[in-house]
């Protein structure tokens, strides 16, 4: 999952980035509204964590412009103002949820996950396919009820594939979801992580198939 963090306070920006990175998500950061609009113009994001008090262009205007341009990525609004009026205004402007500063890292992660679940229509945190289950919150993979360790990037890739429920996931989308401006994630790297996942799923009835010219699909054999 690729996340855009828009926050002008450098400490909070770094804290958000590291907290989200630790979940295995790819994070890009900008410190003003103008750069936020620029970032979304060249890159698709799954979710944006948006502060409202921003230099250049304030957060509500950024949000409105995103929605006016038809950008549908989820938005978690971050602000230090906790008056009801502010919350209503933020949500009415196209925000998916609202988080008041300061907050616990665990709450931030839980809210990001909840927004994404709502967006994908998945009401459960556990994705199941054949004899494989993957908990998107705890990032735990169970094969035949045996716990298998996965790295954050493997977990991201697995969530992407299992979340698409039998449909092929384009390689470009995988690259985008696993990249950030700080890391150069190439299509070749995707193949390496696909290989790693195939090895971990070797003793199960689930396999990752290559769809030539498109990407990958995960399926369970009978």
């Amino acid at each position, binding site marked *: 999952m690729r996340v855009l963090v828009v926050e*002008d*306070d*450098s*400490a*909070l*920006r*770094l*804290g*958000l980035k*590291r*907290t989200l990175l*630790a979940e295995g998500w790819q994070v890009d950061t900008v*410190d*003003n509204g103008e750069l936020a609009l620029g970032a979304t113009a060249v890159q698709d994001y799954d979710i944006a964590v948006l*502060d409202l*008090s921003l*230099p*250049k*262009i*304030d957060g509500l205007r950024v949000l409105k412009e995103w929605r006016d341009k038809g950008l549908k990525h989820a938005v978690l609004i*971050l602000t*230090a*103002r906790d*008056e009801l009026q502010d919350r209503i205004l933020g949500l009415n402007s196209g925000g998916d949820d609202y988080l*008041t*500063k*300061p*907050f*616990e*890292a665990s709450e*931030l992660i839980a809210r990001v996950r909840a927004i994404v679940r709502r967006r994908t229509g998945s009401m459960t945190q556990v994705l199941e396919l054949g004899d494989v289950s993957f908990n998107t919150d705890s990032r735990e993979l169970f094969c035949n009820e045996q716990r298998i360790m996965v790295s954050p990037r493997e977990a991201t890739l697995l969530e992407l594939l299992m979340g698409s429920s039998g449909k092929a996931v384009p390689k470009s989308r995988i690259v985008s979801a696993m990249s950030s401006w700080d890391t150069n994630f190439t299509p070749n790297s995707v193949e390496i992580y696909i290989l790693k996942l195939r090895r971990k799923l070797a003793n199960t009835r689930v396999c990752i198939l290559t769809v030539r010219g498109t990407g990958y699909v995960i399926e369970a054999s009978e």
Partner: protein
Amino acid sequence: MKLLKADSLRRNLILTFIWLWVASALGATLVAFWLAGRSAQIAFDRILKDDALALMTQIHWDKNTPVFSGDTHTADYLIFDSFSPSRFTVITEDGKKLVGNATLELPPNADTQKPDIPLFFDSNTSIGNLRVVAIKLQDKQSSAYAWVIVGESQAKRDQISKELAAAIFLPAIGLAVLIVPLLFAGIRYGLAPAKAINDAVSKRGINDLSPIPLSQVPDELTGLISHINDLLRRLEDAVAHERRFISDAAHQLRTPLAGIKLLVDDLLRTNQANPKSPPDLEVLTELSLASSRVTQLVKQLLTLARSEGVNTIEKNEFTLGFLISELLKNWGPIFKKKGKDLHVSAYLNSFKDFKINSNLTLLIEILDNIIDNALNYGGDTVELHANIQHSRIILQVLDSGSDVLQEDVEKMLTPFWRGLDSTNQGVGLGLPIAQKTCLLLGGVLSIQVQPQVKGTQVTVDLPV
């Protein structure tokens, strides 16, 4: 007694009314008593005179000698009084008694009395105090005369005085007894609207600063309630301003605190995952910077809060040159480090020996905040300039920064306003602090944008 509590309006009204009523009622009663008594005296004197005149009709002149026609019984009959027997005597000019039932003396000045004019006087005789009238009867042919003297006991008049006193004073006392509760009731009724306002105000919640409705307020209290409403409105504005300020302050504190929290959590998490690896330098640097920003913010908030309650400022004398050298000592290295220039105008330098009587510490704080603002938001050059006008000094800090819109000038003095283009880590308290501190020194801080040249000019106009 609650009713007569000191400083109570009701107590003051009751006491004032009672004193006024007692004084006026007593005065009126005494005057009425005196007038009634005097009327009674005149009436009795007239009757006494009529008795004397009745006796005079019985006197005729025989060869220049007065002769009383009847005897003593006839005379008694003529002046009969059922209450107390009248005393009378008729004497000639040489003092010979013609008729009479008592010996009545004339007063010493009786000789000068004109004929037929009654002479009234009080006489203390062996038969008691008498009210006496004496009329000189003169023969028309000769100058011979006789005195008709009639007296009556004062007891009758004393009796009528007592009756008059009873008739006047007793109703007055009764009225006094009746009027006190009426007075209490009247004042209570009159003060009822004021009490209703008092009750309504006392039932309000502590945060209810809405105006008191004037519809039920009596005319006499309308002015007072209007003033109170005006105070309430100003208080509400002040409270709203304070709330906004606290909310803004909390907002400014929450952001770096949120960052600090996430970074500390990150350090803990990475330490748990890999206890032997050193903490990330980037995280430690950001934590240090964020802590400094929070410290600076708290310091500025405290400065602002302290400036609210100060009434008197200690002043000392220093030269303009000393002030400038202190500023250059503080700011010179900072400007150098940032590759910027802090320039002192030649005109200012020519007034180096000018003496300023003000508070050096506060003046430095004002200029520190203005220069800091110019350093953060201005261009590469910041210039200090000064003007001396009568007993005032006008200090100016000019920066060559980006253009400030005229409509943003007032906002620059609003706490926490930073402008949309601001990308530095300031919190927008510098200029508001400078403005408040300037007011403490009796000065005025103003901001001018310069359309003809790039940049902003902040002016501090101070009495010296």
